[in-house]
């Protein structure tokens, strides 16, 4: 076979410029074949770059998310590998649970996701906190838009919830004072209570969900939540009247997708204990209500 090879081919010294050797004639097919090979080679090079880049990104992500979920955070004996725990799934469930609860860099990830959401569509915003408001921009004073706590320190939470140790007074007593209105979405109404009967405290949350058409009025739905177990409840047989005033306008639409209006028939406050004013005739709320659909 080697002799056959010697007969068919000559030894070629490529370094020797003077040596002449026969080359096949150029043809369209050979040109095409060379072009294909060149393209394949080019494709291979970019495939390699693609593979390296994606593998690097994958390994970096794995390193960031998996290797930094430290089990020392749990301050326990660790996830023990036993046959029993392995067969009934506790071992793998523990791995999953530890991983799920120790994802690192959550704040940074949220920051990144907000920026990503900017390219998903129009109108997405990032929630950068503004440290201080400039007093003037372009010569115009910007009104102070920060929310101010009401002066009488009536926070909505103290109105609608009560600490366990507080005693809810008999609401049939005359209130010592009425509460000043404040700018929240919670509202208070009055009830008429019969001193000879027990009274019920309920907390009502009204959800104002508007599906809007510019021609249509807003729609309001009300759901009633049962009283918190920490609150003392009394039931009333007297007709309780509550009114919810929702401000709606037919020609304007609200941009909020969900707003909450709370109507309290009676109130239970932490400190000092609150009593609800009673009225014989007036069945409307004492304070103006701040509706979720207010424009």
């Amino acid at each position, binding site marked *: 076979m080697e002799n056959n090879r010697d007969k068919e081919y000559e030894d070629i010294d490529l370094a020797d410029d003077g040596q002449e050797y026969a080359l096949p004639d150029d043809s369209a097919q050979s040109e095409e074949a060379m072009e294909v090979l060149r393209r394949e080679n*080019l494709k*291979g090079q*970019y*495939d*390699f*770059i*693609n*593979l390296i*880049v*994606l*593998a690097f*990104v*994958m*390994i970096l*992500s*794995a390193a960031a*998310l*998996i290797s930094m979920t430290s089990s020392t955070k749990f301050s326990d004996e660790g996830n023990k590998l036993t046959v029993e725990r*392995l*067969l*009934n*799934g506790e*071992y*793998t*469930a523990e*791995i*999953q649970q530890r*991983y*799920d*609860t120790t*994802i690192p860099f*959550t704040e940074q*990830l*949220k920051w*990144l*996701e907000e920026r*990503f*959401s900017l*390219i*998903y*569509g*129009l*109108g*997405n915003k990032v929630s950068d906190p503004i440290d201080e408001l400039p007093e003037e921009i372009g010569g115009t004073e910007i009104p102070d838009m920060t929310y101010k706590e009401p002066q009488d320190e009536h926070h909505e939470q103290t109105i609608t919830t009560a600490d366990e140790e507080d005693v809810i007074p008999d609401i049939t007593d005359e209130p010592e004072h009425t509460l000043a209105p404040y700018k929240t979405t919670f509202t208070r109404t009055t009830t008429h209570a019969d001193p000879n009967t027990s009274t019920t405290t309920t907390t009502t949350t009204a959800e104002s*969900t*508007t*599906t*809007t*058409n510019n021609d*249509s009025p807003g*729609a309001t*739905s009300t759901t009633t939540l049962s009283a918190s177990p920490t609150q003392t409840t009394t039931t009333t047989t007297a007709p309780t009247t509550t009114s919810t005033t929702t401000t709606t306008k037919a020609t304007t*639409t609200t*941009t909020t*997708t969900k707003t909450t209006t709370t109507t309290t028939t009676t109130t239970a406050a932490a400190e000092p204990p609150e009593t609800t004013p009673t009225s014989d005739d007036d069945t409307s709320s004492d304070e103006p209500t701040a509706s979720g659909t207010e424009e």
Partner: protein
Amino acid sequence: MVYSDLLFFLGLLPCSVALSFLDRSAEYKNLILILTSVIFISWAKPVSVCTVFIAVILIYLLGLGIGFFSKRENKPASAVLLAVSLIVNAAVLLIFGHNYLFEGALQLDPKYAILPVAAAYFAVRGFSYCFDVYTGKCRAEKNIFCLLTYMISYHLMLAGPVVRYGDIEPAIRKRTVSGRDINDGLDLFITGLGKAVLIAPLFDRIRLAGLNAPDVTLFGSWLGMAAFFAQGYFTFTAAADMAAAFGRMNGFDYPKNYTEIRTDGLFRGLVKSYNTTLVGFYEEAFSAVPGKGAARGCICIMLCCIAAAAWYHISAAYLAVGAAVGLILILERYVWGEKLAKTPFFVKGIYLLILALVVFGGIYFDSFADYKLWLLSLVGKGNAYKLSHTLKYLVKNNIFLIAAAFIIVCRPLKELIFKGIDRYADSSDRAYGQIRITKTILRAAVFIMCVVTLALRTAGA
């Protein structure tokens, strides 16, 4: 565990692929694949692996029996064994894939049941192997580890494809994996991951805003149902892409389990475009029903459609939709198919759109009353408003993602864009390099977005 779990694709998958490279032999690669698959399917309940192994041993023995009797041309005996394999695989499908049917029944109750992942595809693979041995398409496998690799492979668990054993057997016995395979696999995996993490959940939110809102609106009815189909489509095609990617990274070349939606194929083409391999297997299996003529054809089509619907979900809605699909396919085949094929593409498009909405929309609703209300709302009856704010802002805030999803689905638009890109890439080496680098950067960006989104979802943020 699913394909889009962080622990899976950032932990188990890279380890599995890397370990596969330590040896070139197919036996070693099969061993790594089996071990990875065992971890994958038993992550929630490791003891479920026992159930899987028992099922594989049964299928192995049944396959050997069918092959033994087929060689001796004892068709009745091999038919009996084929029937037994059908019962075994149907039992696996019912007990593990549809165990919502047994709520309240002792050990079959979902909270007690051992649930291997994706029992539905497992059962179809098991039966398809026995069917192929019976019909002579492949020989009975004597090496149980080869059969185990086929049955248990995590590539084929969640979204198929329904690969026939005869097609995959050469690769199980001998295969190679090159850098290009890993590269192509990674590209395909990131495409699938993007669909599963970024696009499908968006359509889920649009569906909820459109169909589950307190006040259903006119646009909500249309967009909500379109989003329901889109969510199902992108979830399935994402899993199919990722399955194909895992196959590539392990040296397998699986058939694609979905095709592009084309008007040419009419309603039959639309049905076959989704879960293509499963529909193809059902067609082949039911074509074995003896008989001739149009009556046999009609019976085969109807049985095939009802069986396929039951495979997805056993409920009145699904079975009714399956029967409706069967009826339309029969009418298309024997009544109006030829005439419709000659109409312009927009006529066919409208025909497909209306049929898909009306027929497949039925699987969304639990009761016929809700379905009827929704049908009426499509034409503006029963709803006071045209568009809700939630839906409007959801669409507006994600309009570019929706446009990208539309381009993926709309074949003429996709071809136009990709042809333009290819033409530019072919113009010079520099242009080719620019396109390739841009694609790499885009893929890396999509991957990072998916990881960030999944990490936040996992952390509950």
